[in-house]
Structures are given as structure tokens and as C-alpha cells.
């Protein structure tokens, strides 16, 4: 189902790939518009709208006041009337000032109307830490969004998926929360993994929502992860390959729908599971993945599974502390070695 217009070797960073999908959909459909704080001339704090203001102008790339409840709600109402708004919440951490519109309205109207009202809206938001932005600006929070029903939740890890998932999100008739990690955007002013700039198909590119990707095939252990942690997991897999350990990396790409089949078939092969999650450890994604495997067939696991996640603590500011809590190379490697021990 992944549609690609033409083979290409053109490389983009993730933010430009995301913006390219938006531009293509905006050209094709006058009902699409993008709205949020500093998305106009500034181009989005994390580059999500790079170049869009120049092409589409202030009537379709719209700067808002700092009134998230009002403008998220505005997006909902416009979507109810058949427009296809993309609304940016600058940081997912700010969900607390507008969560009611998101989870009680955007996510529930379709259901409460018995399917008679659609809310074809995309909520984009930046997530993640790693650059000392402190406890209120470094969270991923995807477990929270995914727990609350009625919205799809997508989490691209690389430029091509960022484009393809954005295309799907805009075309989806259901609300989609599109969470982009600052660390995958390939921003010039932030440390970046080499995978944040990569080949991106030109023309229409669609990645269906709800299908995980096997980011790397392997036979000894399955690492289930998403977003920036995919890059870290791939780096660790490179390292471990030198020791003859074959790591399979599953990039979930979306939490809702959650591709449990992809997880199960990988674990069926490897018998060992590590979940790497930059969200808080408890009551979230990592537990869900483990439970999904075990409730289907506990005999799939040949060893206790391991969760490598953000601990249940606010995220500290100081670099040494933040790097102690983030699920980075050493912790991932240790987790893998533990399940193989």
C-alpha cells in the first residue's frame, strides 16, 4: 500500500519532508490549512512549516494567539464543516491547557454522533527531550494520547515516513495526532542522528497508518520502539552485530492503531523482547507491548522481557541528569544483553 511516484535519491531532513507532504496536500485540496503558534513567517519552532508561508500566505498558514483551547477547538469546528485543518500544538507538553478539546471533543464527536459527524483534523505536536529543555518541554506523552480513545496517534522516525504518514493523516477522515520528535527533525541547531536526513520520494508518497516497519531484520532479539529511539536502537544493533548478536528493530510508526501483529511475529521469531520508549515507564506504551505479547501467547518469550524507558520521574534539566534518564545507547545495549543472558 505504500505508493511512491518515482524512484529518487533526493535526501531531505524530516522537517522538510513533513512540510513537503503538507504542501502537496494543500496544493491538491483548498480545504487544507495549517494553524498554530509561530507557524507563519517563523516556519514553526521545529521547522514543521518550513517554506509553507512563502507559498501559501497568511490565509492558509495561520499564526494564532497563545490560546490553544480556542484554536484547537477552531480546528475541530472547521473539520466538522468539512475543512481539513492541521493544527499545531507547539510542544506536546502543552496538552494540559487544551486537552479537553483534544480528548473530549476532537476524539469523541464522531462516536457521540453515532458516526454522523466526522472530524478530519490533524493535530501536530513536537515531543521529546535530550537538549536540556527541562521537565515541561521534554516529554513525549504519546502514551497519554494513545490511552485516550478516538484519535489515531502517529510517530514518524525518519524523513520518508514523516512525509508518507503526513499524507495519510491529512487524508484520514478521523482525527490524527502526529507527534514529531525534535530529535528526528534534522534541525541545524540540534544534535542529530545521521538518519534524520535521508532519501524521500518525490511526488505523492503515502504510508498507511497502523503498520509497523521492520527497521532492521534480526533473529536473536526483538527491539520494539518508535520515533527517535529507533535511531538509537539501530545504532545499538550495529554495535551488537560486531559481537554476532542479531537484533530486529520494529519501528511502530503508530500507537493507534497499534500493529500488534508485527510485534508478535517478530517475537515469535526471536523469542526475546526489549521495548525502548522515551515516554514514562509505567502505565504506558512499554507495558502495553509486553502485555500484548503475553496475553496472546506467553510461551513466545524465552526470557523475561525488558523495558528501557524514561523512569517515572519528571525530566531533569541538567545534562548529566537528563542523560541518565533517557533511554540511550548504553541502557538499550544493557537491556538487550540482559534478555540474552
Amino acid at each position, binding site marked *: 500500500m505504500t505508493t511512491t511516484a518515482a524512484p529518487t535519491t533526493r535526501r531531505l531532513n524530516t522537517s522538510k519532508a513533513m512540510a513537503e507532504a503538507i504542501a502537496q496536500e494543500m496544493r491538491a485540496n483548498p480545504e487544507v490549512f495549517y494553524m498554530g503558534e509561530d507557524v507563519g513567517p517563523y516556519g514553526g519552532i521545529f521547522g514543521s512549516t518550513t517554506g509553507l508561508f512563502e507559498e501559501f500566505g497568511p490565509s492558509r498558514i495561520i499564526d494564532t494567539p497563545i490560546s*490553544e*483551547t480556542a484554536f484547537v*477547538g*477552531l480546528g475541530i469546528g472547521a473539520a466538522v464543516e468539512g475543512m481539513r485543518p492541521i493544527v499545531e500544538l507547539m510542544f506536546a507538553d502543552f496538552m494540559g491547557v487544551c486537552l479537553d*478539546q483534544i480528548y473530549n*471533543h476532537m476524539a469523541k*464527536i464522531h462516536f457521540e454522533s453515532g458516526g454522523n459527524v466526522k472530524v478530519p483534523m490533524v493535530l501536530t505536536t513536537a515531543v521529546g527531550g535530550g537538549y536540556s529543555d527541562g521537565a515541561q518541554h521534554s516529554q513525549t506523552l504519546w502514551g497519554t494520547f494513545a490511552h485516550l480513545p478516538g484519535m489515531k496517534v502517529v510517530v514518524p522516525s525518519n524523513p520518508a515516513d514523516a512525509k508518507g504518514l503526513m499524507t495519510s493523516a491529512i487524508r484520514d477522515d478521523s482525527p490524527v495526532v502526529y507527534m514529531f520528535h525534535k530529535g528526528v527533525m534534522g534541525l541545524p541547531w540540534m544534535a542529530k542522528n545521521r538518519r534524520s536526513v535521508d532519501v524521500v520520494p518525490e511526488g505523492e508518497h503515502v504510508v498507511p497508518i497502523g503498520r509497523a516497519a521492520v527497521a532492521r531484520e534480526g533473529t536473536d532479539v526483538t527491539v520494539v520502539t518508535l520515533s527517535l529511539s529507533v535511531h538509537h536502537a539501530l545504532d545499538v544493533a550495529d554495535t551488537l552485530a560486531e559481537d554476532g548478536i542479531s537484533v530486529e528493530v520494529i519501528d511502530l510508526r503508530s500507537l493507534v492503531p497499534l500493529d500488534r501483529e508485527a510485534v508478535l511475529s517478530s517475537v515469535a521469531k526471536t523469542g526475546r523482547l526489549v521495548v525502548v520508549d522515551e515516554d514514562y515507564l509505567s502505565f504506558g506504551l512499554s507495558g502495553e507491548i509486553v502485555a500484548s505479547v503475553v496475553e496472546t501467547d506467553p510461551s513466545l518469550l524465552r526470557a523475561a522481557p525488558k523495558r528501557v524507558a524514561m523512569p517515572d520521574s519528571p525530566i531533569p534539566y541538567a545534562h548529566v541528569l537528563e542523560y541518565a534518564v533517557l533511554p540511550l545507547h548504553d541502557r538499550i545495549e544493557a537491556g538487550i544483553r540482559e534478555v540474552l543472558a
Partner: protein
Amino acid sequence: MTTTVTPQQGLDPAVRLDLYRTMVLVRTYEMAILREYHADKGPGFDIGKGLIPGEMHLAAGQEPVAAGVCAHLTGDDAVTATHRPHHFAIAHGVDLERMTAEIFGRETGLGRGRGGHMHLFDPDVHFSCSGIIAEGYPPALGQAFAFKRRGTDRIAVAVTGEGASNQGAFHESLNLAALWDLPVVFVVEDNKWGISVPRSASTSVPSNADRAAAYGIPGVRVEGNDVDAVHEAAGELVARARRGEGPSLLEVETLRLLGHFEGDAQGYRPELADVEGEDPIPRYEARLTEAGLLDGATREQVAAEATARVEAAIAFAKDSPLPDPAQATRYVFAEEGSR
């Protein structure tokens, strides 16, 4: 920018009779719902029991607001209402049968029984409501945005109670509508109570119309729960929104005849004994009669018509099938190919 409108008498008689008809229809409807709601809650009162389970917020006494405002709207305009939505729904022309079926939790309901009385969605007339205080305002902005963007003269009306005017969403919505000149009329129903909390303990100014100045938009307060005055004030505000002159705020003094929800004993409410005498419908009847616009026969005819429509809607609801429990989680996401 703040005006206080007091009752006028210059209104077209036909319009006044229409306002009367709307108010009677709403009241007849709510009294029938009241009857059905309590019919099967016993022994004692169990909120979860009966043909209509759950919370029930009736708007009896507040008909002048809905009738006076909605008289200026068509089904192309949007209305977002509150947890107390019936009067606006009916005045705006929501399908009475499917609305009733929804309240009875039936498959033929507006939301196929998924929504309930606080979550009525009728896209045919762009009507919606929400059980979260003041959170119906922001979506109305988006409807108005779409209407304006498409070059129409359609408008949105967003309703809250006076208690809700102290929520953040109220402020953000008024500011954004004012900034972007959106065609929205914000309506505050001041029934003086937010559940058990009197207006004086919730709202720091006597008139929400004064808050319009905080956004540079017109603010009007209508006293006396008078449908003619509401009609007049709303007419001008709706017209200016249609002309592209932007949003405005209309606060209407009104009356909650019943408890906040059914089951509310209202022990906190000292003025309760006086309330019945302030019922706006008999008062309007008296005024129309005095003005020679209403006689006994018309009155009876209006009442009979209302009763017939209401009882037909209730019969429709009762005759409708219950939803299939096996489909309880359908409609979480839009289905393939339904675009």
C-alpha cells in the same frame, strides 16, 4: 460598547406568535421528557434507571433566550449549546424525533444512542452541544471560520451559562473571534445559578456584556427574561455578523425554573418560592393577550400542535429499536469509504 436592552413592543405580530409557538413547543417537550424521565426511576430515585437514564438538565424558564435568538437563524447557521441543550436544539430546528430517540438511547437517535442528552449532533442544521463547561465555544469559532472562508453569510451562535463565563475557553474564544472577525454571536444565559453557586459567587462583574469591552466587540445585556427584547437584541447582532462585522456578546437574564438537574432538591436556593410566578411563558401569554394577538382558541391550538409533535416524537423514540450491544464500540473511527 455595552448596551442594555429593555423590552420593546414594536415587533411584528406574526413574529411574536412564532416566538410564542417556539417557547410552547420547548416547554411542552421538556415537560414530556420530565414525565418520561421520572416514570421509571423507582423505587426511590435511581439515576441510572428507566427509559431515560443519566443526568437530565432541563431548560424550563429559559425558552425566551433560545426562541429570541434562533428566530434569526436558518438551518445553514450553526449553534453550539451546552449540557442544557433542548431549548436551543428545538428552536434551531433539530429533528425532534431523532433527538428524542437519542435521549431514549435508541438506534434511530441522532447519535445512534451513543451520545445522550448532553451530546446531540444534528449536522443537517449544524447543531451540537457538549457537557463540558464553555468548551462548546471553540468549535463554534471553527464553524464560523469555515462559513467565512467559503464566502457565505452564515454565522455561528455559541451558547453558555453565566457560570461558564468564568472558564478560560470563554476568554480565549472571544479574543480569537474578535481578532479574526469571525461571524459568531456568543450568548450567555444568565439563569443566576451554576448548579448551587449563585452568580455573585462566580462572576466578578454584574454584566457579562461589560466583558465584551475586553475584546473590543459589542456587548449587550437583556434584562427581564423577555423574548421580545432578546429577539430585538439578537437581531442586530446576528445581522452585523452576517454583514461581516464580526462577533458580539449577548447576555440574557433568564430563569431556571427547575433544579440544576433532575434530582436536585435545591436546598441552597432561597428565592425558590418566587420562581414559579416569574415563568416567562404565562407572562408572555398575558402580554400577547393584552395586545390582542392571542385568544383562547389560538392558545389551545398552539398547545395542541405542540403536544401532538412532542408526543409523536416520544412515541417514535419508544417504538425505535435499542442499539445492538455487539456494536457498542462501532464509530470510534470513521469507516472506510464513508468519505
